């Protein structure tokens, strides 16, 4: 059954809690997961969710159902909220080009839990524009086209960023292996 999301937004803005519940139930989990996976901070993810949905309750100027699904619009709001939250903080480390992956699997021989922790750390160290394509394409399982719509870039840019992100992840993991 199709849900009339523009209608639900209008009803929410008019103070209809039932309409808000439907929108929040559908869209809060992905917005929260995205913010959590990008920031690594449950507190910051909570703040992002609050800001995004406050925006929806108090106007959401600019949302046009013809331009794309509400979820993409909310992801966009969350991206801006995260960018503002992170303004002034030190940006994540940009990995150097000097360490090339040697072809060996840097995760080989590690327990699964340790593999996950190492990848979590390497992902957190990626510059945000690379990290977000991994989050959208690999973790949220958005298509390249959907990711391109959220980011406002071409599909080819998504592909190249994802490829570059994976390359950087392997380099980071290889370096961790050397330093371990």
């Amino acid at each position, binding site marked *: 059954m199709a849900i009339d999301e523009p209608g639900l937004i209008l009803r929410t803005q008019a103070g*209809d809690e039932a309409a808000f519940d439907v929108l929040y139930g559908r869209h809060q989990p992905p917005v929260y997961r995205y913010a959590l996976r990008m920031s690594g901070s449950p*507190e910051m993810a909570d703040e992002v969710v*609050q800001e995004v949905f406050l*925006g929806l309750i108090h106007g959401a100027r600019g949302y046009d159902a013809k331009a794309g699904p509400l979820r993409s619009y909310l992801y966009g709001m969350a991206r*801006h909220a995260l960018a503002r939250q992170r303004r002034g903080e030190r940006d994540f480390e940009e990995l150097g080009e000097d360490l090339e992956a040697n072809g060996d699997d840097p995760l080989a021989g590690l327990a699964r839990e340790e593999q996950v922790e190492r*990848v979590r750390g390497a*992902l957190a160290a990626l510059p945000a524009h690379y990290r977000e394509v991994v989050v959208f394409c690999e973790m949220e399982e958005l298509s390249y086209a959907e990711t391109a719509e959220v980011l406002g870039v071409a599909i080819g840019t998504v592909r190249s960023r994802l490829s570059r992100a994976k390359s950087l992840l*392997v380099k980071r993991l290889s370096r961790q292996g050397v330093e371990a």
Partner: protein
Amino acid sequence: MNDTNLERVIRELAAGTAGLEAAPAVSAALRKAVRARAAERRAPWWRAAVAAAVLVLFGVGLAGLRGGPEAPAPEMRAVTPWYFNVGVPPVENGQLIRMEVPPETAARFGVVVAGPVEADLIIGDDGLTRAIRFVQ
């Protein structure tokens, strides 16, 4: 290392956060904001007063993320000055709302509290927060 192995580990990482959701306090604060919208519609004079307050606040200039002079609103019981967000584009219209915010948000402005605290927020009509102050 091949992409498939890396992707497998990334999917495991994703699965570890798949069921997580925002704290219940976030939902409660947002519901309060929705109820405030309903109250605004029932009391149009209040909406007009809010719009007037916002116009006054924007009129004094929203430059800099800094404490500004207190707006003359004795019923507000403000305990901090307004903190303005310089990282967003200017808007012509907005709304003044009061809601509970988590202690982590208050701490970012140097307000140390044990639990949720009431705050006034100026929300532009694009949905972005322009200013915040904390009240008792």
